[in-house]
């Protein structure tokens, strides 16, 4: 196949050069009338007797084609040359067909007899080309021609033909599954036979084909045995890089005996050093799979030793771009959990030091690994490093570095003192976000080592005024409450916090409540008033049910102080750094899947990709596991917190369920992701309930505002009603709201909702105009962006109430006018793929339901039921004329309008199916 394409570039490049030069002069080369002239001339040249002239003409046609020009009118003229004896011309014609067949397979099928003839040609290049071309004609009818030719090609004496045929078998599988896996047709047997043939190119293409078919069919078509294993291992070093990837992966899928495992690992080890990271990682995968099978300690040690330098090389920025480093780091994170001592040495640790111009995702992964490698022996080095990160300019990274120090403190009890010292040093710098992050971390340290570091509380208290993040505030309040007996002015401090109680978010409110109760139990004389005040605010003034309930529980509990002390001040379960560890069985699964998506997201394949495999772009639906890996770490740490903590953490979440807070009875909740909206776009029946388009728990970048929307008409004009609930801690005053170019050309001209104070809901009706840009993408939904102080959120608003835009009253009523308009306008046609009903009364009812007026119904042929119905309506001051054709049980919609025909026809489609 390659042979054919190679001669084109010169021609192409020439043509391209001339094209660009012409474009630069400002002329749209392809749209001038010249083009038609050139096509005509080509047509003439293609019929010439002289081979050279025809050859030139075909080259030009191909150049046109690559540049995107439609050269289909020349198809018949081009293929006339296919029977030529001139090798070069033949290859050119094939190249043309290969490119053409993707678009118009039926036309390409016309010359199939020539392909079969060429599959017998004496030149192996022609034979391979014929096979490849047939594989590109992806329609079922090709099967009967391709099967015999392909069978023969798989047994061809030429390696090049065999290799091409192997790949072509995968193409055949896409066209017709049954015939490939059918044991009578023995395609699989033949592919397997190719593996023992020796030529590395043939072997690896056969392996690639078998793997791919195996994956698509879900059957183990490979069925590797020890003979094949030996053949693959022997070929390994002779293959090119991609071949090695396929072979290594095939090896990793095999279940070897111990003896086999040892010898294969020896063969695989040199590939660890390969410059291509995909090869190196595939080799690591084989070793991860085989190593547990080997009992010899020396073999294990030798292999692990051999793995170390290549792993480090994967991080080398002068060989690998950051993207590859990232994948390597995620995989390494798994490997060092299984082999924790592998990289703890100083020399290896240093490889994970972050550099200031690394992308943030590389830096964060390096931090993660450094925390994993942290040990009593190397913590000093790590702390110095983390300290310098905490002084960089990138806020997100600084926060992660501070957290990392805290995790080291919890992981290494003997060195906790040192970590705390570093944290204190950082807090003393007074840099706001360092202080806040430091306090969050120190709370955890207090949990792990109770009563050990309370002398630092003084330093923390110096920074009370600078706290403005809920988590930091809640942590500080927790610390004061826990140690209120030992902080002399604890009642004052808590009183200060309690003063702003009603303005705080639930997280801080709950923390204050618990802390005040603790204070009261420690110092009953001093805190009596405060606790009463807080409890009465909680139970009387606040409408957050969790807060209220907890208020009542404490109130009741405090009736019996002895019991209360036992419960509230009791011993809390310890926390540990183990929470970041992946559970052993899961780790086994993940390690067996090194170098896959699973190993990047640290989720077993079954959770990641539905059913382990999906084959087309439309089947996946897994919005619920869509949290990023960072989030999963955090959520797992939450799980292990004590019950008390859980109550604090979990309850607000339950309250955050988007539906009931809006005071709407179960309006459909739509996931925040655009695709989830898209999965049920127009079919949703026009409901009167607002649809939640943005939930408050939307992730780190934008959280705290919940929005539900509904399209409606006000005084005859379209508007969007927004129900906005502010779940953040701050009042929202500034709003910017924009629509992206959408299918209706809707535009939001004005958006001035009132200030939304925390916890309240505001209904605002935004007037809409039709002056926006029209885009033909995203039918049935409108992408919108909302900017507030909280950040920018993007979401999709489904639009399904078509009666809002179709105006029956403005529609043409006069049949004559209808007819004359019908003649004037261009026709748009769309067969309705799966109509819900096909009888005229259903069609009439459905379309009238969306705001159309029936004009006429005519029976064309009573015997076949061929009939048509005409309807008219008006959309945005524009007449829309619709015809629905009833033809042998199918519906075909025709639609004529100035601008909105495409939209109208899609609406008809969605109303009927």
């Amino acid at each position, binding site marked *: 196949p*390659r042979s054919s*394409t*190679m001669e*084109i*570039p*010169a*021609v192409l*490049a020439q043509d391209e*050069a001339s094209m660009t030069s012409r474009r630069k002069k400002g002329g749209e080369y392809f749209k001038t009338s010249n083009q038609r002239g050139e096509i005509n001339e080509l047509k003439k040249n293609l019929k010439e007797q002289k081979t050279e002239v025809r050859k030139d003409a075909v080259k030009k046609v191909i150049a046109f084609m*690559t540049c995107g020009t439609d050269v289909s009118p020349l198809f018949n003229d081009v293929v006339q040359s296919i029977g030529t004896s001139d090798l*070069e011309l033949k290859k050119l014609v094939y190249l043309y067909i290969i490119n053409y067949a993707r678009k118009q397979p039926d036309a390409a099928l016309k010359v199939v007899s020539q392909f079969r003839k060429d599959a017998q040609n004496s030149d192996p290049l022609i034979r391979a080309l014929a096979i490849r071309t047939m594989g590109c004609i992806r329609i079922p009818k090709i099967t009967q021609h391709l099967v015999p030719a392909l069978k023969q090609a798989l047994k061809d004496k030429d*390696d*090049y033909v065999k290799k091409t045929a192997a790949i072509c078998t995968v193409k055949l599988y896409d066209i017709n599954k049954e015939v490939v896996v059918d044991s009578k047709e023995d395609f699989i047997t033949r592919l397997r036979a190719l593996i023992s043939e020796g030529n590395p190119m043939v072997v690896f*293409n056969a392996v*690639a084909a078998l*793997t791919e078919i*195996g994956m698509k069919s879900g059957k183990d078509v490979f069925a590797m045995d020890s003979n094949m294993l030996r053949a693959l291992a022997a070929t390994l070093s002779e293959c*090119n*890089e991609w071949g090695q*990837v396929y072979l290594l992966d095939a090896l990793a899928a095999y279940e070897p005996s*111990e003896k086999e495992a040892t010898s294969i690992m020896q063969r695989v080890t*040199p590939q660890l050093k390969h410059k291509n990271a*995909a090869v190196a990682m*595939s080799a690591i995968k084989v070793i991860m799979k085989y190593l*547990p*099978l080997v009992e010899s300690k020396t073999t294990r040690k030798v292999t692990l030793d051999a793995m170390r330098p290549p792993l480090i090389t994967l991080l*080398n920025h*002068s*060989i690998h771009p950051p*993207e*590859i480093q990232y*994948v390597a780091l995620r995989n390494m994170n798994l490997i060092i959990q299984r082999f924790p001592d592998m990289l703890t040495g100083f020399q290896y640790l240093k490889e994970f030091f972050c550099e*200031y111009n690394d992308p*943030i*995702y590389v830096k964060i992964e390096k931090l993660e690994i450094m925390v994993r490698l942290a040990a009593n022996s190397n913590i000093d080095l790590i702390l110095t490093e983390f300290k310098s990160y905490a*002084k960089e*300019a990138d806020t997100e990274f600084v926060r992660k570095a501070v957290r990392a120090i805290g995790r080291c403190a919890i992981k290494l009890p003997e060195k906790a003192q040192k970590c705390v010292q570093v944290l204190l040093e950082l807090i003393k*710098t007074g840099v706001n976000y360092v202080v806040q992050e430091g306090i969050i971390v120190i709370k955890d340290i207090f949990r792990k080592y109770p009563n050990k570091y309370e002398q630092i509380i003084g330093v923390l208290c110096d920074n009370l005024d600078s706290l403005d993040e809920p988590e930091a505030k809640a942590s500080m309040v927790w610390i004061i409450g826990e140690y209120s007996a030992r902080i002399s002015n604890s009642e004052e401090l808590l009183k200060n916090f309690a003063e702003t109680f009603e303005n705080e978010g639930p997280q801080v409110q709950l923390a204050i409540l618990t802390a005040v109760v603790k204070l009261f139990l420690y110092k009953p004389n001093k805190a009596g008033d405060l606790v009463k005040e807080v409890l009465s605010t909680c139970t009387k003034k606040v409408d957050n049910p969790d807060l209220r309930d907890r208020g009542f529980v404490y109130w009741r509990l405090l009736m019996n102080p002895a019991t209360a002390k036992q419960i509230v001040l009791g011993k809390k379960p310890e926390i540990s750094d183990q929470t970041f560890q992946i559970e052993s069985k899961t780790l*086994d*699964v993940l390690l067996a899947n090194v*170098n*896959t*998506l*699973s190993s*990047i997201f640290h989720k077993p*394949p079954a959770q*990641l*990709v539905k059913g*382990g*495999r*999906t084959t087309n*772009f439309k089947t*996946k639906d897994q919005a619920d596991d*869509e949290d*990023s890996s960072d989030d999963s770490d955090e959520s797992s740490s939450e799980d292990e917190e004590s019950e008390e903590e859980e109550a604090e953490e979990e309850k607000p979440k339950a309250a955050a369920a988007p539906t009931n807070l809006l005071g709407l009875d179960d309006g459909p909740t739509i*996931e925040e992701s*655009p*695709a989830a909206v898209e999965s049920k776009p127009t079919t949703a029946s026009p409901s009167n309930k607002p649809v939640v388009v943005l939930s408050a728990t939307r992730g780190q*970048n934008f959280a705290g505002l919940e929005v539900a929307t509904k399209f409606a008409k006000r005084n005859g004009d379209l508007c969007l009603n927004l129900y906005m609930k502010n779940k953040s801690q701050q009042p929202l005053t500034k709003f910017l709201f924009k629509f992206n170019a959408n299918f209706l050309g809707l535009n939001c001209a004005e958006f001035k909702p009132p200030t939304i104070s925390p916890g309240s809901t505001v209904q605002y009706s935004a007037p809409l105009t039709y002056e926006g840009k029209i885009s033909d993408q995203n039918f049935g939904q409108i992408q919108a962006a909302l900017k507030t102080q909280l950040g920018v959120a*993007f979401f999709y608003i489904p639009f399904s109430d078509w009666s809002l835009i179709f105006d029956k009253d403005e529609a043409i009523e006069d049949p004559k006018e209808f007819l004359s308009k019908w003649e004037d306008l261009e026709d748009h046609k769309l067969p309705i793929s799966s109509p819900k009903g096909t009888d005229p009364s259903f069609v009439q009812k459905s379309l009238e339901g969306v705001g159309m007026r029936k004009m006429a119904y005519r029976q064309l042929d009573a015997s076949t039921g061929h009939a048509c119905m005409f309807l008219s309506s008006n959309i945005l001051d524009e007449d829309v004329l619709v015809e629905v054709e009833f033809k042998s049980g199918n519906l075909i919609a025709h639609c004529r309008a100035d601008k909105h025909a495409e939209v109208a026809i899609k609406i008809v489609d969605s109303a009927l199916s």
Partner: protein
Amino acid sequence: RPRQTGGGTPTRPRHPCAKMFPNLFIINSTGEVLIEKHWEGKAPRKVVETFMEQQVKKERKIDVTPVIETPKCFLVHSRRGDIVLLTAINKETAPLFVLEIHNKIMQVMYHYFGPSVSSRTVRDHFSLIYHLLDEMVDGGFPFTTDINQLQAMIQPPTIVNKMMETFANSDSVKKALPEGMLTKIPWRRTGVKYHSNEICFDLLEEINCIIERNSNLSVCEIKGSIVCTCRLSGMPDITLTVTHPSLIQDAVLHRCVRINRFRRDRVISFVPPDGRFTLLTYFLRGPAQLPIFVRPSITYTDGSGNVSISIGSKMREYKAIEDIKVVIPFPKEMLSSNLTANSGSVSTVETATGHHREVHWNLPRIPQNKSPTLEGSVLFPPGFKADYRPTLVVHFNVKMWNTSGLQVDGLNVTDVKYKPFRGVRTATRAGRFHVRC
């Protein structure tokens, strides 16, 4: 014979992992699709929008995670300059496989269009790129990715232009598959002919290091490579020996090097590809002799910082240290700087991402008679708590010298009748040379 294993689970579910390259979008920084190609199925263009939504969330574009999970598919991307190579995958696929193909495509583009491939380049050569992609990937499987083979099939634009000038209408296409397609030496084309035969080796070293505040070398690594420029006729067989073979024992080798001979005798023996190629790359870790010292000092008092940075040569004998550039990144809050140098030029630059304001100090070379110093102050807004310790990035070039002392010991060209011209050059430059203060 299936065995029960020691620690592992008895049966591991097999989850297949594809090695397919289903599609490629090349997009520019605003999300415009420059190239779109599908090998397996058709991914909707919407994936590009989804990708752009992820990018908008990040302060710096380079911070977008390379593998993104979206509800419908996974987006794998590589960023090179102002273009992004994006592939949407919808089944378990080895991400490195996709990333390495991206890498390969970029290498080929660099080879064809020069080292600065931008969205402009892609636009100008789109049909040539489509053509290359057609050759490089067939039905989702990598096909011809070797640059030499590709070049034999598809000529780079410059050569074509030259041809057009000289032989206006000559037919330059080749009649058969390029030789070497299925031979044992696929990297060299046959029938190479030169009037004057020459072979040159460049011993290049790059110093990557982090120098701590206390002048300790906390990380140091030398990346060395032997780059060969080969303009030899016929099928020459070359044997190269070096002075300290132990330095290169863990080297990454070009596929033409006979690996067993290298392991056994520490001799680099090979049939070279035609043109310029990297013969081997090696890495040396641990302390090394640095050609240059940098002593920074920054102290803060009440919103302003005093800066003093001096640099100088550490070489025992004189070597020209050239093209020195010291970059000092300050936080974006910096109001103004008043920095002067007794040698070279100083400028302040806002970084593209707006994250830092960088002070650039450029020196053509280190003068022999004085030691260059940069001094002055930087001003921050009142109340700004700056305990910010920038990491200086230093660039320089040294010719005729390398850190490791690796040298060519012997060079033999056999299997040819002519005596070629032979040359060896050495040079060292700063890779990622970071100085913390």
